[in-house]
């Protein structure tokens, strides 16, 4: 479970090799040893586990100045779950001081965790104003959210090859319903029956990032109860962070003996990112020609599937005329990380600037990525390139 006491031993597996310096986006900008996983873990150990030093505002700053991008965890040879430990530290800090910002808690618990609430959009809008966020930095919410556009079961076209449930994340629901409609259309076109379960809420990743364990538990429980009851071959999501939530975080939200664990196992085993799933299944219909250069931005939350980053490359390579132009570092973070970019604006912009340069260097006119937050945060600055989900690209090639 995401309790610091549970990590007292594993935190000492860190050998201080410092390899986390190579990939930590925050360290690479700040160039401060205290801003890299190795040091964060030492600090968390001293201040919150062994309690040999006081929890100063600087300790909190260091714990919060982390994107939770998971780069350190994915690259740690000692397999220390750095991001879980940092999350657990935030949970503990929040519990100690009641520190979860009440406004944010409101957004997460009342908006993301209870979709379909009347007037959601107006509320979110007024929250944005209270937070004094410029319209440039705040995504425009879709006029009609995805859950009001499509619901129920969408039949497979041609021979039915699979039946999947589609977990629609907040990014797609509130910001990019076009991704949702592409996922449904492309899957159905390829012989997949798509069930869109009613009552789905946020995956809980935003709550966790704020140290709001209860909020994450609450929404995950709602989702698991719904998804576990479905008779489907797989559960797909278009968002890598939602996938990560189910695949690697859900079980850690509850005690090991919690009765929900059995259902979590059942659900998480079936979880796939939609592009990944379709790539495994293979296309039933050849896409039409769509000439142009594209590049692929690998979302950071990709560690939960070995093939989630290969799938878009392979699948889109089957579009006649589509040419993949790789970035120098396709897996480099874009700096958005949920709401991180709002609270650490300057830092996030510096991280993004490298990504933007890399993208422009490829000469691509389309940027594909499975993360809606990356899509938004890159899209704000990319005027000449279109940022889209891989299945959005495929839908266009199919003329859907």
């Amino acid at each position, binding site marked *: 479970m995401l309790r610091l006491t549970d990590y007292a031993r594993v935190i000492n*597996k860190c050998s201080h090799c410092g390899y986390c310096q*190579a990939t930590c986006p925050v360290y690479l900008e700040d*160039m401060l040893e205290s801003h890299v996983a190795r040091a964060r873990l030492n600090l968390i150990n001293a201040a919150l586990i062994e309690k040999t030093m006081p929890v100063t505002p600087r300790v909190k700053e260091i714990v919060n100045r982390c994107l939770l991008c998971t780069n350190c965890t994915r690259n740690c040879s000692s397999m220390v779950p750095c991001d879980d430990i940092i999350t657990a530290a935030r949970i503990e800090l929040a519990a100690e001081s009641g520190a979860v910002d009440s406004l944010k808690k409101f957004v997460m618990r009342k908006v993301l965790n209870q979709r379909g609430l009347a007037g959601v959009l107006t509320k979110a809008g007024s929250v944005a104003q209270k937070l004094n966020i410029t319209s440039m930095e705040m995504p425009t919410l879709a006029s009609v959210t995805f859950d009001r556009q499509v619901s129920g079961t969408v039949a497979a076209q041609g021979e039915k090859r699979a039946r999947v449930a589609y977990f629609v994340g907040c990014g797609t629901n509130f910001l990019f319903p076009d991704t949702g409609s592409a996922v449904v259309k492309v899957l159905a076109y390829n012989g997949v029956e798509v069930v869109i379960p009613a009552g789905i809420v946020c995956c809980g990743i935003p709550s966790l990032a704020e140290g709001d364990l209860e909020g994450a538990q609450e929404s995950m429980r709602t989702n698991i109860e719904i998804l576990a009851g479905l008779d489907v071959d797989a559960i797909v999501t278009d968002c890598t962070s939602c996938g990560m939530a189910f695949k690697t975080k859900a079980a850690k939200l509850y005690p090991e003996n919690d009765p929900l664990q059995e259902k979590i196992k059942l659900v998480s085993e079936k979880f796939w990112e939609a592009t990944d799933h379709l790539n495994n299944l293979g296309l039933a219909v050849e896409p039409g020609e769509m000439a142009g250069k594209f590049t692929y931005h690998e979302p950071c939350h990709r560690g939960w599937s070995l093939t989630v980053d290969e799938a878009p490359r392979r699948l889109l390579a089957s579009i006649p005329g589509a040419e993949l132009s790789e970035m120098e570092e396709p897996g480099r973070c874009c700096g958005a990380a949920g709401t991180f970019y709002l609270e650490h604006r300057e830092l996030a912009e510096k991280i993004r600037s490298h990504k933007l340069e890399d993208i422009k260097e490829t000469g691509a006119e389309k940027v594909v990525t499975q993360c809606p937050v990356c899509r938004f945060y890159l899209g704000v600055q990319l005027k000449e390139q279109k940022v889209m989900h891989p299945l959005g690209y495929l839908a266009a090639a199919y003329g859907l």
Partner: protein
Amino acid sequence: MNQILEIDQRNMTATVEAGLVLSRFHRTVEKMGLFYPPDPQSMSVCTLGGNVATRAGGPRGVKYGTTGNYVLGMEIVLPDGTVINSGGKFVKQSVGYDITHLMTGSEGTLGVITRINVRLIALPPEHRTIVVTCESPEQAAEIVAEIIARGTVPAMLEYLSQGAVGLMNNMISPPLAGDADAYLLIEVDGNRSQVDYDTAVISGLCKEMKSRDVRVIEDEREAASYWRARSNLYPLMLTIMERVISEDLTVPRSMLPEMVRMVQEVSASTGVGIGLGGHAGDGNIHPTILHFQTSPELDEKSQVAIGELLKKGLELGGTISGEHGIGIHKSEFLAWELGEVQIELMKRIKQAFDPLNIMNPGKIWPEGGECRC
């Protein structure tokens, strides 16, 4: 202080700041068809300044030498704040004492290196990876000695134990059959005909010497997975071990079979688990002390084992450190290799540079200046 200041293709040199991360330097020069061979396995995070200060090596030492072979000049801040420049961009110099190479490997005890000129070479156009599965550690060592004796110079020639391959298989795709006691991981490079020739010589002699298997890896991605796993071997060991102490005893290459036997004997007589893995090609197979658990008792035994290893390594005509340097860890053994006269001379050099003893005090020789041994 982490920038590349200049890459001078006409002179085949580069000028960099001390905080530059090595892998970034590698990527930048290689894009230009140039090559900076030193490759300490922490290259994704280690800095050029640190490499120079510790005279860092790596697998490519067998063919290309170590950091010291590439340093041409530097900017140094002396302990009193004076800034001096030694060497330059020229490839040879015969003017007085060689301060540049005195600073190289000085472990921060003489001054602060802030800027470095290094030599670059042309990037070899071809490279190929060969994996040899051996019948025994002794056979692996004999094959290494024979490869060198026949005049073949691989770019990298690494010895891997069964345990090392087991761990590396987490990153090698497809994994290597892990049922042998010893392996050699080899890369040859150069132009096509050189690579073909070296591959044929090495494959041929491995067969002559009845190794279990020789495999030339054609697939670039597969080959890369081996070398990536090799870079991560040390942290990989830490996934199952509580403590890993990697020694860098280095012997003349003809003595490798003796060294392998010696390490096994020391392990048996001291009751300390000692693995072998690393840069066999330059006589530097790291004897690595492995503890699944730690205890003061085991630490004491390890210290005895390290002493034994180094003493016997010196008897084989070796050195107590091929690439890691002395620091604190090996300071007590310094006199075994250098003798009192050389140590006294070094201390007088230290005194001349740093009379107040403010530069990295306590390193190379124990604090207070006396060796325990």
